[in-house]
């Protein structure tokens, strides 16, 4: 029973990590950079949901929708204002362009956080859960409805994104662009638009995680930093590769972390993500499942 409980919580945490990691991977595959502002997209979306739900009194579902649209828009705007001007600057070499973009995401990370503090910095806020019954009991196993929602939404979203990449034309264009930018231009793809769309979609992944997590945790401007690390760890485990790989990476991360905490030392839970990042990147950069050749080291 205890193991089942741990598993259910680990899986739902892992789903959140996977979603955050997925957003990181999308941007990484498109532009070759880790997005340090990703945690802030997570935070901003949670606050967008809060605003819609509490301040404008919209229903949870509707607030979620508003927040997703907001996340997408934020991703696109951020790409347009802070990333594209650098990516388009041909006078820098490839390496310095990447460094400049990373620094720009670092700048975004603190700027967005600072921006969020103006309306939200004075106290900790809470978003009510999607369902009024907080827990249900299945054969003695007590499950939180919000956690079930997280698992369901994360699974659905991961599958939807996989389908999006394999079935829709925009998805195919995004894959094409991340695999071969020159090739993408040669089939008439406007790669600039694709980068915008990638950032938008990445923001949605982070945003959905933020919205789902919001009722479980409390909302405050610094809530994104911790998620960023966990998302990085999930992405590393997944090898910065496929959508499914990252999702599984997140699950592994969530499950191992909680069992580690329960049976070894709870104090290790804080440090688990950075250890995973270091160990995986140094000793198995292709992740748990990837093949060596697919790695962009």
């Amino acid at each position, binding site marked *: 029973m205890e193991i089942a409980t741990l598993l259910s919580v680990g899986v739902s945490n892992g789903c959140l990590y996977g979603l955050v990691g997925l957003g990181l991977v999308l941007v990484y595959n498109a532009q*070759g*950079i*880790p997005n340090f502002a990703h945690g802030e997209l997570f935070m901003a979306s949670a606050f967008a949901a809060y605003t819609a739900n509490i301040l404008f009194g919209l229903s949870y579902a509707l607030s979620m929708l508003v927040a997703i649209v907001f996340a997408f828009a934020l991703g696109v705007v951020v790409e347009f204002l*802070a990333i594209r*001007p*650098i990516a388009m*600057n041909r006078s*820098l070499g490839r*390496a*310095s362009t*990447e*460094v*400049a*973009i*990373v*620094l*720009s995401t*670092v*700048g*975004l*990370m*603190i*700027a*967005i*956080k*600072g*921006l969020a*503090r*103006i309306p939200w910095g004075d106290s900790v806020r809470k978003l009510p859960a999607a369902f009024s019954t907080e827990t249900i009991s299945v054969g003695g196993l007590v499950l939180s409805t919000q956690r079930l929602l997280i698992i369901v939404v994360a699974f659905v979203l991961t599958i939807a994104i996989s389908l999006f990449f394999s079935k829709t034309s925009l998805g195919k264009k995004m894959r094409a662009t991340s695999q071969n930018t020159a090739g993408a231009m040669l089939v008439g793809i406007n790669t600039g638009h694709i980068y915008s769309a990638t950032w938008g979609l990445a923001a949605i992944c982070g945003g959905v995680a933020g919205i789902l997590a919001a009722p479980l945790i409390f909302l405050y401007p610094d809530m994104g*930093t911790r998620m960023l*690390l966990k998302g*990085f760890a999930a992405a*590393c485990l997944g090898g910065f590769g496929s959508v499914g790989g990252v999702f599984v990476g997140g699950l592994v991360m969530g499950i191992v972390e909680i069992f580690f905490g329960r049976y070894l030392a709870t*104090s290790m839970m*804080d*440090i688990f*993500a*950075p*250890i995973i*990042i*270091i160990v995986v*990147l*140094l000793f198995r*950069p292709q992740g748990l499942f990837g093949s060596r050749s697919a790695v962009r*080291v």
Partner: protein
Amino acid sequence: MLAAVRSNILPLFFVLLFGLSFTTDAYAQYLINLMLVYVVVAQGLNLILGFAGMFAFAHGAFMAIGAYVSALLMNKFGVSYLVAMPAAGLAAALVGCSIGIPAIRVSGLYLAMVTMGFSEIVQWILRNWKPVTSGTDGISVASPVFFGVELSDDFQTFYIILAVCAVMTALAQFIIRSRLGRAFVAIRDSEIAAQSSGINVARTKVLAFAISAFYAGVGGSLFSLTQHYINPDNFNLYQTIMQFCMVIVGGASSLIGPFIGATILTWLPELLRNAQAFQEIGFGLLLIVFVIFVPKGLAGLLIDKGILPREEYSSRVRGKWVVRKERAEGSERT
């Protein structure tokens, strides 16, 4: 006269600061000290980021190692500050090596993530290894004693900090003008050309890590002098980001850059004490605006405009004014 000022701007800056120390109050003196400490750390970051082109995201952690090692040596073993400070630098350099050796296997942006993970682990150790670091309670740092005189206030520590900053600046200049400094730039601009000219890339990268960490370690030790008390929060991600801002705003791959960056980023928040709410946003936007519009930083801008002389990368050329605006005249000659 003006040319002499321009080409000796750093020595003049030190002289100016020295002079100011006779007229300032404790508040200004403290900020000058802090600024000089940040100059040392930013120089270290600049060596690895600006000159060697490696994205190390761990200078807060290296500072922490320096600060704690020197504080513990002084508090627990009664070691003189004169010994503790270089020891702090060496300890940081050693850790820098040990993270640098495996980390050179991953390039560019993976390195950023590995080093960021490393900083988190250092933070965790500082918080949890209580018998040694006292955890979040922090440790207070004794004032250094030289020949029986305790240097406790900012006016007294200023002389140590100024001297160390000057020495470290001279050392940075020496490095930049030596084969090692040129090797840094070579691996930044073209690894294959570097290798083909006989430069051992792996060893150069590890050295860059070690030297950079050494600067951060010494900086951390000096930092503990300005604070008299250190705790893990002093060396968190925010500290690392501050250092990045200083290097980028001041000018990466320029010796003067860290001075400009540290000056601005130490004084600006103080001047804007009344507009506190916007400080974080300000830092963030400053970083973005600089990477987009002034990628070479203020020092790069001043050099490109011919206001400051180009910095030399060799010790044999003295007083040669190589101004970048020469591009205009007859570069198409063949």
